[in-house]
């Protein structure tokens, strides 16, 4: 299966197979006007299978979302048909308004203007906790 290469845009590569749609939704890519391709279960030497997202526009993407959902993903920026930048995305130390605290006792549940902030408290087990109430993210 072939997807045309892009001239100017973003390729999110090495996505764990099955996580492509989740990333698509969390990154809000459905709101874009440009072409967006999601390739599921592509062959990968390293992973066996992987998902890929190609965005046909050089837009800013929220790297924190990518690092939270699937650390280890590559984000490649393509300019004039050439690879201009390749970034390996690690788990971010802080997530702001990416995920939301579900603890009904948290101050977040009543202070509407408050940013929902989560801190990485255990990198090995990928545990994020609410900055305010320390409840673990699901």
């Amino acid at each position, binding site marked *: 299966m072939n997807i045309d290469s892009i001239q100017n845009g973003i390729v999110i590569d090495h996505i764990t197979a099955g996580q492509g749609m989740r990333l698509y939704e969390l990154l809000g890519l459905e709101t874009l006007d440009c072409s967006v391709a999601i390739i599921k279960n592509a062959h990968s030497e390293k992973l066996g299978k992987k998902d890929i997202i190609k965005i046909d526009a050089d837009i800013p993407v929220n790297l924190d979302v990518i690092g939270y959902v699937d650390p280890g993903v590559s984000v490649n920026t393509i300019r004039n048909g050439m690879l201009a930048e390749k970034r390996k995305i690690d788990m971010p130390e802080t997530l702001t308004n990416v995920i939301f605290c579900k603890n009904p006792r948290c*101050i977040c549940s009543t*202070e509407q203007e408050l940013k929902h902030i989560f801190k990485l408290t255990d990198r090995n087990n990928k545990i994020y906790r609410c*900055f305010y109430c320390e409840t*673990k993210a699901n």
Partner: protein
Amino acid sequence: MKRSLIAIQDFSVEELQELMDTANDIIANPSGYSELCRGKKIATLFFEPSTRTRLSFEAAMLELGGAVIGFSEAQSSSAAKGESVADTAKVISCYADIIAMRHPKEGAPLVAAMNASIPVINAGDGGHNHPTQTLADLLTIYREKGRLGNLTVGICGDLKFGRTVHSLIAALSRYEGIRFVLISPEELKLPSYVKKEILKANNIPYVQTTDLEAVMPELDILYMTRVQRERFFNEEDYLRLKDSYILTPERLYNAKKDLCIMHPLPRVNEISVAIDDDPRACYFKQVLYGKYMRMALILKLLKEAGTL
């Protein structure tokens, strides 16, 4: 520089020792401290009722020569009109030199500290943190046992929702030779994240049991807690668990002669009043020590903020 106390871990072991040293000096020489906060005000912002903690802060400030403003329930504050915690903190910063805040929502004092220009002390945020209770606990242990290490500490009752328990475990886990005996019904056991992130992460030995009597001879400290009605969504669960452990003189038959019995208070019926006259009962001293630690804390935070 302005600094706040939101969780007990905000202070190092050295800083906790400094607070205890100050508190001990206040106890020995109260007149030397009676004018230090003359002209300063503490705002006690209590969005849920807590007579003892509020009065302890107010007594602490008054004994330092300072003054007190504030409210004791959300209905008499602007919160009833829908004001945010952030705005309240900004407004009160214009009136007072330091804030002590109790709030039913977890994290509210942290939000206040992020928005206030004066120090904020967490006086309890829901079932989350209550660091000044832990300060009282530490001074009690230090004065009664002469040390904060090499102790077997039994904690009994509600270990799941009891915020004082989590804070105390976090604080004592930083001292050498601490061993915990965790006594609770199955439904109120210490949450697994506390065990994993504090006890196991620091290689602190602990045992869990439902049998208080069996472990009584081992204990240097017995920290009793109340099963708190306000932490339950379900009244039936509360009624079923509230009388799980009741300490009576008979149950102390195999306890050490120098056991230190503590309780954050208020008690309901988990410690029989017949124990009050036992020299091992330390829970009313704990209240007194809490006031001295709050005095030491107010002084430290005002000094660091450059107010004193």
